[in-house]
């Protein structure tokens, strides 16, 4: 069918529909010249950009699902340990060498041990639920630190430019040349001693440079905008212009990359812990659950690694979808 097809169809439909009161067919032009509908009150509701973004976000189905899953994970991290507390001594008798398989594998109707147990008889479900808290805390804590530093450094560099910009960005370059992995491993071993707060700080202090670059680039383009000059012409101070006028305009991309930072911090925690450089073995996190499972893989107890691993994969995927939706929703160019 050609491009004109649907349009032509619509027109012919219209001409069939519009029949004058006398029954004679009317063409569309006559219709338009006929009596117009009564003047009606047009009330346009004022949507601010957040409301517009929310509308667009809702249309992005995967993002909504992702947000739902992320929300559930957050709730799990907060309330899970209260509902299903971890008791070091609550051990199930172990019948298999690598831990008991999930209860439903024997009896599909039982709710006992849905994720199986580890080799010591601890419920993997409880390990996973309780691990959510630390994993999420580290993910979010890292993001808060990294975003704060990144935004401050990036906005100063971008707004003031010149020497300040050069200095700050050379420092960022330096940070980015550091082999991230080794520094994390070494620092975690040196300062960490398995403390989740120290681990969060280390991540936060290493994660900000990318964000600083992004913020700087945003500021460089935003400060050339007419409204910034207009604000200066009104007598607004530079600091106020930076944080009150430019920052809100840069918030969209910052939020998007912040969500993605949460995901990568969770993954980094998991893998640092997996290498036994992260949290203490007694702290419960998804990474630790994976780490302890690795030694028994050989006996085919897939559930021990599978469920915490799925929790990580699910959360990270959900966050990425959420970030994707936010990117579309907050992009000022995608107005429709």
């Amino acid at each position, binding site marked *: 069918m050609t491009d004109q097809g649907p349009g032509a169809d619509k027109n012919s439909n219209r001409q069939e529909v519009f029949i004058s009161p006398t029954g004679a067919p009317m063409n569309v032009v006559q219709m338009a010249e006929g009596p117009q509908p009564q003047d009606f009150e047009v009330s*346009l509701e*004022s949507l*601010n*950009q957040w409301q517009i973004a929310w509308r667009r976000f809702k249309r992005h189905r995967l993002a909504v699902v992702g947000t739902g899953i992320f929300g559930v994970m957050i709730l799990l991290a907060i309330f899970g340990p209260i509902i299903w507390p971890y008791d070091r001594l609550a051990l199930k008798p172990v019948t298999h060498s690598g831990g008991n398989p999930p209860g439903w594998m024997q009896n599909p109707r039982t709710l006992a041990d849905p994720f199986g147990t580890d080799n010591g008889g601890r419920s993997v479900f409880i390990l996973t639920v309780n691990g959510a808290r630390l994993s999420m805390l580290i993910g979010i804590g890292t993001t808060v630190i990294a975003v704060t530093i990144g935004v401050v450094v990036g906005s100063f560099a971008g707004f003031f430019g010149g020497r300040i910009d050069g200095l700050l960005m050379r420092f960022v370059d330096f940070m980015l040349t550091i082999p991230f992995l080794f520094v994390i491993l070494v620092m975690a071993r040196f300062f960490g001693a398995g403390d989740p707060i120290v681990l969060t700080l280390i991540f936060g202090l290493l994660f900000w440079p990318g964000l600083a670059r992004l913020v700087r680039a945003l500021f460089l383009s935003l400060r050339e*905008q*007419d*409204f910034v*000059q*207009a*604000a*200066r*012409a*009104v*007598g*607004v*101070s530079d600091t106020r212009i930076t944080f009150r*006028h430019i920052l*809100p*305009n840069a918030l969209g991309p910052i939020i998007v990359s912040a969500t993605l930072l949460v995901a990568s911090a969770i993954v980094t925690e998991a893998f640092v812990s997996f290498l036994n450089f992260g949290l203490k073995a007694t702290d419960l996190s998804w990474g630790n659950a994976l780490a302890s499972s690795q030694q028994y893989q050989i006996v085919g107890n897939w559930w021990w690694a599978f469920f915490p691993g799925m929790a990580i994969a699910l959360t990270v995927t959900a966050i990425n979808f959420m970030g994707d939706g936010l990117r579309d929703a907050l992009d*000022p160019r995608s107005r429709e």
Partner: protein
Amino acid sequence: MTGSILPVDDDVATRSAGRPLLEVRDLRTYFHVMDGVVRAVDGISFSIMAGETLGIVGESGCGKSVTSLSIMRLLDMPPAEIPSGEILFEGRDLLTMPDEEMRKVRGNDIAMIFQEPMTSLNPVFTVGDQIAEAVILHQGLSKKAAWDKAIESLKAVGINNPERRVKQYPHELSGGMRQRVMIAMALSCDPKLLIADEPTTALDVTIQAQILELIRTVQDRTGAALMLITHDLGVVAETVKDVVVMYAGRIVEEGSVEEVLLAPKHPYTEGLLGSIPSRGKRGERLNVIRGTVPNPFNMPPGCNFAPRCPYAFEPCTQADPRIGDANPPDVACWLYTATATSPTPPRVRPRLDLVEALG
């Protein structure tokens, strides 16, 4: 258009007596760029009395906007540099003023209306927030009072239903409406000088007339002085009393609107006037000023306009005429010196349509 909301300034009369409100003396603004130095503004002087109106006319790139940005000190330095000159506002030199004080002058004493209403408002704040910000900043009003003031000033620029508009975001308003908001913002602190930089260029013709009319009314009502920057001689004829014609960073002619439009002296002014289409010239070819503005890195010797000037003669390529060199002194052209051997240029036909606009 609703009126009488903005307070009428009582001392318009006292203000306009005595020395000028704004006096620009030998202002030079240079830009240091990769290829060298651009002399965007190269030694211009003019003044505006309180409550008076001055138009600055010239084609793109002649330094009009740079002049206004220099006055407001909104240029980034570097690359810009102001190697010489004084900008006296109420006797104080804006160029040497500390940043802190300059900020109090901006918006409060001198307000500016920009060319692009579509992008000059911050997209993430409501119109009311943006007007209120200026008021809070300069007049120390409370949030509530500033908000009321914002509504009041929207009403003053002829916006219907200001209580609703004040809560809207820029993207919900049309271009003309946004320019009204910009004007409301500029006037919210009762400035003594209003600089309008091509305020109607981005608007369509019907709205242009309304906005000009609005600027004229509010200027009249508040007694603020107006400096109107435009390339449109029609706009100048309708809006201002005095006019300065700029070419390549220099002032080439100045005088009252009547003098300049009815009896242009400088060949450039003549060319500008001749290039406007008019009813009287129907069917004729439109006159153009042949050639282009000289390359800023390679200015011609002598008069900047000489390469394009139909009357150029020997002195023009040798020395650079300035305002005051010729007789009468308000034109920078060697044709008007006593020693000139060239015939005086034939006058362009008076622009009757522009004359009508003068009223």
